[in-house]
């Protein structure tokens, strides 16, 4: 038996998957700007992604803001730089933790659900049924989900930023006895437009990644219940990895000197 055969098979499967994902992405993007548009489905996906993810994103960013405040205080107090805590919290939440944590939470909640829903539709022939009813499954199922992800994740992140900074504020004021007015002034003075713009841009890209991976894995799932389970796992794992990789690339783009 040729020992290179399994390696070659894995490599060819990888290339096949990359090719299929590329075609899926190009197709999805091209259908985003071509009618018909399904506004009812778009609205329900916006509610699903934005409104129902709010509690989990709020909790995550709130506690992250609180942890950053505690950690930065314990590190900076030894250098007598406690005044910088507000700016550290603001910077970390708006530039990094807000978008990344919100995206990871949405990947776990929404990306997985999308893969499971579309996967079930695939194995029960509902996607074929759409085609026979003269409805393009890409336009009806994929496009509204991707657009909703791109639009709603930045809004979620914006709300998450405010809640995260508020989490830091709560710790600094009520536990570490900072002056509230000084803390807020430091936060406001240190904040730059690029912090918010980079965070929103990242959020939109992450929203695209989460919904794309959820739809892609669900759309091409096969093999019954086991296949749907695999699709769900793959959607979450792939989007989490892509979020972290693209986060680095976007940070390079915005902040490298």
């Amino acid at each position, binding site marked *: 038996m040729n020992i290179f055969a399994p390696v070659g098979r894995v490599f060819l499967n990888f290339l096949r998957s990359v090719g299929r994902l590329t075609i899926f992405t190009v197709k999805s993007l091209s259908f985003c700007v071509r009618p*018909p548009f*399904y506004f009812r489905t778009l609205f329900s996906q916006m509610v699903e992604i934005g409104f129902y993810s709010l509690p989990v994103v709020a909790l995550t960013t709130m506690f992250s803001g609180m942890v950053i405040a505690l950690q930065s205080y314990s590190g900076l107090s030894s250098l007598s730089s406690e005044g910088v805590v507000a700016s550290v919290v603001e910077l970390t939440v708006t530039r990094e933790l807000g978008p990344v944590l919100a995206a990871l939470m949405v990947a776990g909640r929404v990306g997985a659900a999308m893969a499971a829903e579309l996967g*079930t*539709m695939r194995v*029960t*022939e*509902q996607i*074929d*049924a759409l*085609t*026979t*009813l*003269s*409805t*393009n499954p890409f336009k*009806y199922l994929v496009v509204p989900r991707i657009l909703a992800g791109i639009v709603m994740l930045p809004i979620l992140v914006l709300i998450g930023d405010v809640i995260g900074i508020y989490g830091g504020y709560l710790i600094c004021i009520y536990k570490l006895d900072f002056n509230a007015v000084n803390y807020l002034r430091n936060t406001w003075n240190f904040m730059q437009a690029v912090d918010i713009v980079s965070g929103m841009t990242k959020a939109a890209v992450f929203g695209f990644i989460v919904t794309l991976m959820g739809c892609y894995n669900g759309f091409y799932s096969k093999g019954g219940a086991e296949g749907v389970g695999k699709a769900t796992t793959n959607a979450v794992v792939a989007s989490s990895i892509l979020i972290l990789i693209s986060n680095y690339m976007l940070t390079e783009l915005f902040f490298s000197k």
Partner: protein
Amino acid sequence: MSDEIKVKMTDVHKTFGKKVVLDGVTLEVKKGESLVIIGGSGTGKSVTIKCIQGLLTPDSGSIRVDGEEIVGLSAREMERINAQTGMLFQGAALFDSLNIWENVAFGLIQGKKMKRAEAKEIAIKKLAQVGLDADVGMLYPDEVSGGMKKRVGLARAIAADPELIFFDEPTTGLDPIMSDVINDLIRSCVKDLGATGITITHDMSSVRKIADKVAMLYKGKIIWYGDVAEIDRSGNPYVEQFINGRADGPIQMEIRG
């Protein structure tokens, strides 16, 4: 029934990897005729109708619907062809997120851009045609029985008054009485519409009730074609074994130990 050809397949081949599923299928269905394709599991029945619907693309060969070549048509052009067709799926393939009347009216609302109120009225009429009350229209697919799902699937298939209707294993999983009810409904619906029907099944009572013509697929080839009245005296050992359901004969089941 006219002499005009509704569907014509010529030398259609389809393979999946190394597995040859269709090996030169040649078949024609006249307008208003009901053709039933019989054959064991894995002989290529489903692939045949999926090729006609554009859900799968044949490797070679020609498929003409109303004289128009459909192999190689774009998704958009296939939507136009599919607007004149209906399909009853094996598992009904009803959309879980929509209630029953919305399922029936789906092709009218999304495909034909009909107003919801008007489409609902037609959906209720079609539900009545398959023996279901208007109240059922407000239920969701998971709230009705398997037999009712098939009826809803049938109502959806005939909702847009199609010229060509496909039935994929219409009686699989139903008790004998419900199977007979579905067979009667299929017969009456196709007759009322004056539509052409293509059914795939291995249920011989369905064949005798629904079919004008019967074609038998074996190993991706049509090995017998004729009037339903002739099936019992076909003289073909494969057909005889199949219709009598005998284990002994030229058809050997592939059982891997």
